């Protein structure tokens, strides 16, 4: 080892004294190339955290190239509430010189950098952090032997991390065995050889126990660890979605890949369409056929679906549309996070096309938002757009397993004969379609139309008819808004600044409030974007300033998309905007600086 002897910086990772030398939380950044399997290190740590009643949040970047290219995976492990991936890293694990060079600045003063001494030469004159050199590559090759080369060094590093943080080795080995045991004995054996070698590799003081992480409080509930796209699929399956269609686009693709494999197990089907227009059209066909169907995409794909989505509003077809937002416009930043599709989701398509728009606030909420979207689509017979984003889609969190007894619903295809007086679009009632295969007692069969129509769906360009039908479609959202609960405010219930966010900014905003000390800062998070929930004026009145925080451009008039919408809705000039488009999630210090700029601390 060419590195100086490891010794923790005096300011580093100040341990919680009550926990006797153990840490409440730690942020580990793994930096390497996309083919090194660093995502799986993060995945294992996250699942272990889930089983140890710890909280976890991960953050990753992957290049949009097919193979190769720099990649990072950041894991924030903690025994308390973990709400963000962490502004700065406590530990940096660097696989290459470029990983070291590009990410050393993300390491906090007094942090620890463990680097592959086969590939990196750190600047040892840098006393800001502690460097620990370990030959990941040669030690892995030595441990596995044969022609395995350096495949498996991710497992070596995992072994080291278990040692450094005094994680529960036995539980982790069980998870590794379950994961690799499904593949083959050889793969499992090599993984364990590398893991054990990493665990046994002597790295001195860093492993002495000063960095061990406390276990969380076990509340007796089963916990799971996974990413937002997987939880979205779980929610759709629970709510009875059995059919769908899509076209591949990052970061939506893993949802369609999973549905393609999962739905046949439930007797359903997911079709890979030839393009986005066909995907939404097929899903509308499935919805018309009496199923609750899903389609989805990311930014550019949502734009392509817009004409057909207008039809779904017009013909009142229930449909779930997932949009995993990424950086735009155009092809934009396919693997970065942004929230710039809000206006597209609400107002996209031609004509007046009311539809509901929801946004999950974290990975766990992807499940519950999907379930709610299904309920709204079925009750109101309309398309519902779920706005997820790249950060939610790919990051892993640990949380309580949903109660399946409460949430699982088996779908029901209602082909019972419809009575004489049935009409598809009653003037004073919600549409419930008679799907094909349904006998009509009156002998007259319904035809769905994209033309303006009367109660029977029959084309009509009568002026009163068009106004009445537009009102009918819009009023469904008015009725829906009435049944929504007013969101609760986290933190100060009145005072200085109210932070408003939507989607994946939930964690950073909540953490900002937690860190705001005795300043009167509150946080209101919107899961229902369109229609907005009732009662918000009363909340707004209790604060001096309102700051809407979102990841999109501040626009010509200085306000992000949600801020624009809220200013238009509430005509309240104290609503201001903190908007950014660097393709990265909000850091706590960025939000604090935003608060400072509109409401300077004394």
């Amino acid at each position, binding site marked *: 080892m060419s590195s100086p002897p490891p010794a923790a910086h005096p300011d580093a990772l100040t341990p919680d004294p009550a926990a006797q030398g153990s840490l409440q939380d730690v942020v580990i950044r793994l930096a390497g190339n996309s083919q090194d399997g660093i995502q799986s290190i993060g995945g294992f740590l996250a699942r272990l955290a889930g089983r140890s009643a710890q909280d976890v949040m991960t953050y990753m970047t992957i290049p949009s190239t097919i193979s190769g290219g720099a990649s990072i995976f950041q894991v924030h492990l903690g025994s308390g509430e973990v709400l963000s991936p962490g502004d700065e890293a406590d530990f940096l694990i660097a696989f290459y010189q470029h990983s070291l060079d590009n990410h050393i600045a993300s390491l906090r003063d007094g942090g620890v950098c463990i680097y592959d001494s086969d590939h990196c030469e750190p600047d040892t004159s840098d006393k800001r952090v502690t460097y620990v050199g370990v030959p990941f590559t040669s030690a892995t090759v030595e441990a596995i032997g044969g022609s395995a080369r350096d495949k498996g060094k991710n497992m070596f590093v995992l072994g080291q991390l278990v040692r450094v943080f005094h994680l529960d080795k036995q539980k982790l080995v069980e998870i590794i065995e379950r994961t690799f045991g499904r593949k083959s004995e050889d793969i499992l054996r090599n993984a364990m050889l590398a893991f054990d070698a990493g665990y046994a590799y002597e790295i001195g003081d860093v492993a002495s126990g000063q960095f061990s992480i406390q276990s969380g409080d076990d509340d007796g509930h089963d916990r799971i660890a996974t990413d937002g796209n997987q939880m979205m699929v779980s929610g759709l399956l629970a709510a009875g979605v059995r059919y769908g269609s899509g076209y591949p686009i990052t970061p939506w693709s893993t949802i369609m890949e999973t549905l393609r494999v999962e739905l046949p197990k439930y007797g359903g089907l997911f079709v890979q369409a030839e393009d986005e227009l066909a995907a939404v059209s097929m899903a509308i*066909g499935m919805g018309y056929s009496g199923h609750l169907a899903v389609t989805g995409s990311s930014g550019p794909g949502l734009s392509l679906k817009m004409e057909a989505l207008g039809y779904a509003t017009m013909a009142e077809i229930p449909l779930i549309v997932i949009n995993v937002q990424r950086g735009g416009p155009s092809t934009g930043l396919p693997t970065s996070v942004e929230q710039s599709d809000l206006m597209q989701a609400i107002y996209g398509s031609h004509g007046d096309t009311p539809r509901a728009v929801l946004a999950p606030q974290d990975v766990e909420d992807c499940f519950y938002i999907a379930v709610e979207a299904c309920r709204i689509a079925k009750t109101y017979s309309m398309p519902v757009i779920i706005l997820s984003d790249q950060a939610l889609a790919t990051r892993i969190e640990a949380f309580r397993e949903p109660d*399946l007894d409460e949430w*699982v619903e*088996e779908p029901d295809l209602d082909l019972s004969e419809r009575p004489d007086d049935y009409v598809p679009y009653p003037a004073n009632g919600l549409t419930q379609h008679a799907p*094909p295969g349904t006998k*009509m007692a009156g002998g007259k069969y319904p*035809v769905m139309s994209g033309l303006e129509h009367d109660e029977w769906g029959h084309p009509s360009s009568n002026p009163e008819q068009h106004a009445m039908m537009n009102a009918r479609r819009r009023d469904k959202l008015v009725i829906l808004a009435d049944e929504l609960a007013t969101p609760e405010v986290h933190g100060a219930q009145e005072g200085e600044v109210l932070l408003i966010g939507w989607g994946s900014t939930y964690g950073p905003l909540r953490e900002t409030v937690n860190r705001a000390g005795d300043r009167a800062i509150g946080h209101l998070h919107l899961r229902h974007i369109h229609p907005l929930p009732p009662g918000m004026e009363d909340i707004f009145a209790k604060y001096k300033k309102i700051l809407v925080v979102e990841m999109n451009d501040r626009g010509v008039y200085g306000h992000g998309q949600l801020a624009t919408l809220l200013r238009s809705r509430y005509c309240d000039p104290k609503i201001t905007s903190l908007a950014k488009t660097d393709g990265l999630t909000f850091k706590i210090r960025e939000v604090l600086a935003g608060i400072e700029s509109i409401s300077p601390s004394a």
Partner: protein
Amino acid sequence: MATEAPEKLTKKAITADHPTWCPACGDFAVLAAFYKTLEKLQLPHEKIVTIAGIGCSSRFPYFVNSHGMHFIHGRALPLATGIALSRPDLHVFVFGGDGDGFSIGGNHLDHAARKNVNLTYVIMDNSVYGLTKKQTSPTSPIGYKSKTDPTGAIDQPVNPMRKLVANGSTFVARSHAAQVKHMREMYERAIRHNGFSVVEILSECVVFYPGAFDAGNPRKGGEFPIIEEKLWDGTPEDESRHDVTDFHAAMRLAEEPSPGKFGVFFENDERPTKNALEQRWIDSSREKTGGAGAKKLLSGRFAAMK
């Protein structure tokens, strides 16, 4: 009710609005032949689904009293694919024109064929955009004068038979709106075909392209040459007859000059439908999970996340 004999499907029962087409439009005959075919085949009324996109001919679903959908321009096939795949109990019919099928929806035509979705598609080809009042269509011949090509069309037209045979459609036939009996025969064979069946019908637009298909109409001085199919009787005459399973023979027929031949160009009964292939996958997936319910399946899914 199960004890009652099923109601007989009459032309009256499946007739809806009077068509909004111009008097003497070829589409009237296409519709009349469809009524007659349904009456003959006695399909269960509630299982008939009539789908269309946008265009003059795409108003079709309003004129048939069945479950149906008048969708957006060019996307009738993927819509119908969603219906056919998720509800294999239904009889799915798609009607549309040459613009809908060969221009804005051209990509979908290739993919519905490639997937071999079990449905019947009738293309009413008038070689002009009629609803928008006389623009060049994908099948307008070179030299056709329209509002978008006032000095005559310059783009090479689509050859519908060549496209359909080449893209893997498993039943491809061609007929003429002036030949009601022949249309009915083509419909019937298309409906009986298990897979993606397409019938292209030359249907004259009497307002914007009168006389477009006179060459295929004996009453207008043309001729209506019918494809003679092989009888497999071992006779010397049979040698020269058309083998509908022969791809290359079908392509040769497609290259014949106007008016070309009418009848079944191609049929492949061997290739499995997407409906069958997907069902096979559903069955094997269900078998692996022992037909478990959603709660059990999801519980297993969550267990793998622990």
